[in-house]
Structure formats: structure tokens, C-alpha cells
């Protein structure tokens, strides 16, 4: 072989050779697909593909909770799931920057219009202190859940979507803290920023949610964690604390924050879309997965539904203007039912 021929410049490729589909890969595919080298088998046919002893915690963890998951499928099956919105890091930040600017614009407008956008009577302040702002704790739990799924997902596509979800949860967590700090500044000595942890840990209304979050956090099988979080808890909880709370804030003359909650709901909508799309994909990979997913839903639904049901006082007795909790739950239940039935799943009776 004469080395002057530069064979690498003679025989070239149209895209990365790791791409194995017939269609032309998009930027999302190029940036995301097959980027985790510890998924799959090593040269000797052993999984996970880690260089350290198989006795290390991570190796055993993967074997049990990733490769050993209850869900059926192989790495190629999982990798072929695509985010329906094809979110790359670049697109995601672009989108979220816009969304946060949206919130700032709401505040600026309110300031210009000098609108009374905040109600400040005691019952309303107390509702926020006890019925709303402790939410930053479970939202931190939701971030931990999404971060866990980022590390343990059996494909880089699922992992990447979960990483964006974790950032969305942090965005909420921060906005909630900011609001608590604003309220503390406006109404010192009420306990804002100081008492929410105590409420989260002891107030009866929050305990079923705390139980659901804590139990999900130790649900380590990736598929069980994913289904429990994204297909059970979040669709129910986000509907409650974002959609229904938005209406509640609006009813209590807090139109501005009602819109902020709607802004968060746009993220929740994407999380739900990811849940639905991954579910659909897993069932396509193996029809047996439908039953497996249904079993996980059946297992997590009671505890997660109980978490949401516990919020009755937040609608019926705490705020100055109340809402019928029966109607709130009917709305939540009906959107949850449509989510499940669209995928041939059913809500446990």
C-alpha cells in the first residue's frame, strides 16, 4: 500500500457508521444516539460493559436494575426510542430560556400596569405557607428521581430526556424558593422560608405525597422507577399542583402566579408526552411489556392517588376562595384515564 493514497479520504461516509437506520439521521440522532459506552456487552459477551471488577457497586447495580429490569427488551430496542420533540441540549436551552423570559415578562407587565396581582390577607398567606410552598421539597425529590433515571436509563435517548426533566424540576424548585423569599420579605415573621420543611415532614396533608416520593426514590429498577414516576405520580401530581392550583390561584386574585404555574405546566406536559411515548415504544418492542407496565401502574397507583387525594384541604378549607375538590379530582382522574387508555392500559379500580 502506498501511503500517499490517503485511503481515509478516498473512502468516506455520509454519517457516523454507528447509525443503522435507513433514514438520514437528524441533529438529535447525531448528538444523542449510542453515546453511552457502558450499555451493552464487553468483548467477552458480559454486561454491563465496565472495566472494573463485576463486584463493584455500580456494576452490580446495573446488572440488577438496568440489565436486570423487569421490562423486556435489549439495548438496541431501548436506544431506538426517540424523543418526540427531538430535544437536543441546544434546543432545550433555547426553549427554556424563552420560557423563563416569559415569566419575567409577566412580572414586568404587572409592574407597568400596577395591577394588584397579589392578595395579602392572612388566610391566603397561610394557604401558601402551608399548602403550596413546601412543594419545593417534593419537587427536589422529583429532580432526584429524574437524575436517577438519567444515570440508570438503558438508552442514551431516554437518559437525555430525563436529564432535561431534572432541570425542569430544578426550575420549579427555584421559583418556589424565590416566591417564599419574596413573601418573607413582604410579610416577615410569618415563617416563610423557615417552616416549610417542618410542614413537609409533619403536616398531615403532605404525608401521603412524602410517602410516595420516598418510596419511589428507593424503587431502583429503571422501568419500575420510570413508570412509577412519569406514568403514575407525575401525571397525577402535576395536574394537581400546576393545572388545578393555577385555577385556584386565579380564583384567589393571584392571576400572575396562576400564569407562572401554567408556564411550569408546559414542562409537565412534555414529561407526560415522554412517559406516553416511552410506554408506547416499550409495548411495540414486546407486547408482554403492556402487562408488565400495567402491573407497575397497579402497584403505584393507590399510593400516588392517595398522595393527591390528601390535598382536599388545600382546595376546600385553606384558601379564602375555595374550589370543589370533588370536581378537581374528577378532572385529574379523567385526564389520567385518557392518558392510560390511549395506550391500552387501564386505571386500577
Amino acid at each position, binding site marked *: 500500500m502506498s*501511503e500517499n493514497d490517503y485511503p481515509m479520504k478516498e473512502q468516506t461516509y455520509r454519517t457516523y457508521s454507528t447509525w443503522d437506520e435507513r433514514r438520514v439521521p437528524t441533529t438529535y440522532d447525531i448528538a444523542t444516539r449510542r453515546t*453511552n459506552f457502558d450499555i451493552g456487552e464487553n468483548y467477552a459477551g458480559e454486561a454491563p460493559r465496565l472495566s472494573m471488577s463485576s463486584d463493584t457497586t455500580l456494576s452490580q447495580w446495573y446488572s440488577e436494575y438496568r440489565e436486570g429490569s423487569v421490562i423486556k427488551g435489549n439495548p438496541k430496542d431501548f436506544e431506538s426510542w426517540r424523543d418526540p420533540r427531538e430535544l437536543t441540549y441546544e434546543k432545550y436551552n433555547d426553549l427554556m430560556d424563552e420560557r*423563563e423570559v416569559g415569566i419575567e415578562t409577566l412580572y414586568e407587565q404587572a409592574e407597568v400596569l400596577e395591577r394588584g396581582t397579589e392578595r395579602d390577607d392572612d388566610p391566603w398567606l397561610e394557604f401558601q405557607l402551608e399548602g403550596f410552598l413546601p412543594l419545593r421539597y417534593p419537587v427536589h425529590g422529583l429532580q432526584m428521581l429524574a437524575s436517577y433515571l438519567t444515570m440508570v436509563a438503558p438508552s442514551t435517548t431516554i437518559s437525555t430526556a430525563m436529564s432535561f426533566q431534572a432541570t425542569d424540576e430544578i426550575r420549579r424548585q427555584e421559583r*418556589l424558593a424565590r416566591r417564599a423569599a419574596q413573601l418573607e420579605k*413582604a410579610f416577615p415573621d410569618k415563617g416563610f422560608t423557615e417552616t416549610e420543611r417542618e410542614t413537609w415532614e409533619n403536616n398531615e396533608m403532605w404525608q401521603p405525597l*412524602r410517602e410516595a416520593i420516598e418510596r419511589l426514590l428507593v424503587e431502583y429498577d429503571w422501568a419500575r422507577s420510570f413508570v412509577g414516576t412519569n406514568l403514575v405520580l407525575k401525571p397525577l401530581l402535576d395536574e394537581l399542583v400546576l393545572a388545578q392550583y393555577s385555577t385556584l390561584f386565579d380564583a384567589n386574585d393571584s392571576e400572575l402566579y396562576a400564569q407562572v404555574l401554567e408556564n411550569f405546566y408546559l414542562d409537565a406536559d412534555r414529561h407526560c408526552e415522554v412517559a406516553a411515548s416511552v410506554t408506547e415504544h416499550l409495548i411495540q418492542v414486546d407486547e408482554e411489556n403492556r402487562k408488565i407496565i400495567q402491573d407497575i401502574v397497579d402497584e403505584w397507583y393507590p399510593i400516588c392517588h392517595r398522595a393527591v387525594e390528601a390535598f382536599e384541604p388545600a382546595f376546600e378549607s385553606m384558601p379564602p376562595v375555595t374550589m370543589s375538590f370533588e370536581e378537581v379530582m374528577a378532572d385529574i382522574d379523567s385526564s389520567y384515564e385518557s392518558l392510560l387508555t390511549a395506550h391500552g392500559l387501564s386505571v386500577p379500580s
Partner: protein
Amino acid sequence: MLPNVRREEWYQTATNTNWTPEYVDEEELFPEGMSGKEQYDVPDDGWEEWEETYKQTAREYYETQHEKDKSIYSVSSAMEQSDLPHSLGMGWEDVLKFHFASVPLLERAAVTSESMYARFAPDSAWRHMAHFGAMDELRHAELQLRIPHSFVKEDSQYDWSKKMYHTEDWVSVAGRHLFDDFKAANAIDSALQITFAFETGFTNMQFLALASDAADTGDIEFAEAISSIQTDEARHAQQGTAIIEILDKYDDLDRAQYLIDKSFWRCYKLFAALTGPSMDYYTPVEDREMSWGEFMEEWIVDQFLENIENTGLEKPWYWDDFLKTIRRADTSHFMAGGHYHWRPTLPVATPGVTEEDREWLEEKYPGWEERWGYKWDRHAEAMRNGNVEKTIADDLIVLCDLCQLPAIDCDHVHDHNRLRTYEHNGETYFFCSDQCQWIFENEPERYADHKSILRRFVDGDIEPQTLEGALEHMGMGEENAHERGIDFRAPDWGDDWKDWNRSSSVTGKSDD
């Protein structure tokens, strides 16, 4: 309207979200193997003092990262119509090929590690920060896969940007062994190694020093991209310092010291094997300002020492020896020769050295001619005589059972050409250095099962037991033969040396 609040008035409220679990056990929620608290003497609430300086919020993150990406990708799209990087020459392309083959998927592996901290680290403020670290790493993987993707149409070696770590090429084996070692550890141990040793220690080298070479060469896209990456690294690398501050407070630095001594050495070895040759041999000589050795002294030694001195840590135990090693950079010169000699195993076009190269190398590394010149003379002679094949290895060499790089690296001063061996459970293991042997001996069970490529060969895991079989194993088989490394200057460069009169003082040690 509610009053406005500045970030410092709410940031801690946002990030202090630890709570005591009630429905599950603490040990189940933060298992020891993932969290690592039991390895350290810090009381549980001690970790709640964890604090770093950047305190970036999601709002700021979206804005700055969006701006950064916008500026990088607009440079990229402006470059699409240009002939870059191909017009910059094969030497510079080697730098790019090496970088893209070895970096982006390691960045993606760091997403796993950062996400592990974001779930299992013992404090909520740390978990919060770690998640932004995961996002940063996602950005770096994406950016460094998108840029070279547009080059595969011109040159198939860029295909390795995505492929490398899915193969068993020796660079992949060495890179994964290092990163898996840092990753397969509890959150505290792992973050000390990745964010302190690797990121505060070495990413400057890969992203700033190389960016400076790129700017000199005229590769604006690459220079912009990697210096932008370093701005993220500088931020999330602060996790390590924040951990060390807490350990220092509780007078509990022994384990951290061990992990940093170990991981700093491991990083040095890998960078010496990959980045050293890129800087000293592949970057076109007219665009080289500082040598790898000078960069090491300025960017690594000085800065790392400063970082160490700001904490209660000590210099690594091998520091004095290490300083002598990096001044001569013999590991890196040896590796450059190795890249050349074993070039079919690499997806880069490693060139023979020119006269200007040698003058530059001798100037930067006094004594280079004496130690390394004769090897290149031999290659040049073979080239002149039309024996290109003689410049290419037809054998395998002994590999270190820790770093997976050659176990003899010809550092005469430090006796590195003495093979170190160690018996464990009836098996003999080989090491390139006292440091690698020390790391292995500390935790033999962790490392003993891993087979170096040589060990696989000897054990018959590689079939057929020939060099072709080894190339096939490494992902460079017949089907990928066009991706194998070649000498892009061959055979003409051999003529440069026709009248080369080597000084009689040259010893020409026969150590290979």
C-alpha cells in the same frame, strides 16, 4: 406586587431541601455503595454545610448556555462553506481526530457520574449543582459530536468520534479503564476524582492549551468550541473543592488524598499518551507556541499546586519525581513514537518528523535528539530505502495492567524501562511505573479481572492470534482498513535526513 429579591436572598432556600426520610430507611435512600458517607468521618449534618461559589440558578443557566451555544453554532455554520479544517493540513487534522475520538463519549460518561451525584450525594445543594454539571457534560458530548460529524464526508477517520469507545481499540480500552475507575465509585469518591483531579487538574490542558494551539493554527471553530466548554468545566469542577473543604473541617483528608494521588497520576498517564503527541508532534510546527511539557508546567503543575495549597491536602507522594518526568516528557515522546510505529491501530494519520520538528523538539526538550532522535533516524532510513513496512510494528508489546498503556515507556532517568511485576492470586501483573503498581496493589480485587489487550491475546481471546487478528479485535479489521493510521508524509520525509550527520555523542540505546 411582591418585593423583588436578589439571588443571594433565595438561593439557599432553593438548594437547602434536605429532609429526614420517614417511610424508608436512610440507608436505603442513600445506599453506602452509591453515597459513600460511611467512608468518611463527617457527621450527617456536616454535609449540609456543602457550599460552592458559583451558585448558578436555572434562570441564569438557560440564558448563558443558550448564548454560548448560539455563538458556537453560528461560528460552525459560518465555517460550513469554508474548507476548514482540511485546509489546515493533515497534522492539525490529527489533533482534531485524536481529540474527537477520545473526548465526546467520555463527556457523556460524565453525565452518568454527575447524575449519580445529583441523586445520591449527601447534600441537596450539592445534588442541585451536580445536576447542572450533568447538563454541561451533555452539552459537551453533543457539541463535540456535531462538529466532527460534518467532517466524515471528507475523511472517514472522523467516524471514530462516535465509534471509538464502542470498539476495543487500545485508546478506548485505556480511556474507559480510567473513566470507569472514577465512575464505578460512590458519589464522594467519584466526585473527588472526576471534578477535582480530572477537571480542575487536567481539563485546562485539553480545552485551553489546545484552544491556544487551535487559534494559532487558524481553526476558529475548534478554538471557540473548546474554550467555551472550559467555561462550563471551571464552574462544575468546583464540586471537588467544596467536598474537600468539608473533609478538611472534620480533619478527614486521608481518603481524599489517596484518591487524588491516584486519579491525578491516572490522568497524567492518559493525557501524556494522547494530548502530548498532539501538541508536540501533530500540531504544525510553525503553530506550536508552547510544548506539552511547558503547558504541563504552567497549566497543570502550577495551577494544581495552587489548588492543592488552598486546601488541607498535600502534594501527591510522587511529586518530586513527577516534576522531573514532565520536564523531559519522555512518556509522551515514547507514545508519539508508539503512535507512529503502531499507526494501523489508530484513526489518525501520524506523520514522520521533519527537520523543523526535530529542531523544535531539541529546543523544547534539551537532550531529545540523544534520547529519541535515533529511533526516527531508523524510520527515516527505512523510508529512504523504500521499506515503509519496516516502520510499522508487526508485534504487540507488554501493556500495563493498570493504565493499559505500554508497560515500558523508556524513561531512562526514571527507570521506567524496567518492567514492574506483582503477583496476585498466582497471576503476574505488569506495570509501567511505581504509581500504577501502587494503585493496583491498594485494590487488587478491583482491577485484577480486567484483561489488557495483550492478556486477551495471550489467553486466546483474540482470533486469529496474529497482528491482523489484533487489529480486527480493535475495530481496525479488513473492512475498516481505510480508517487505519498512515504516515501522511511517507515516504518523502525520509529524504530530509539523507545527509543528517548525527553527533557522535549520541548513544543510541537499544531499549526497544
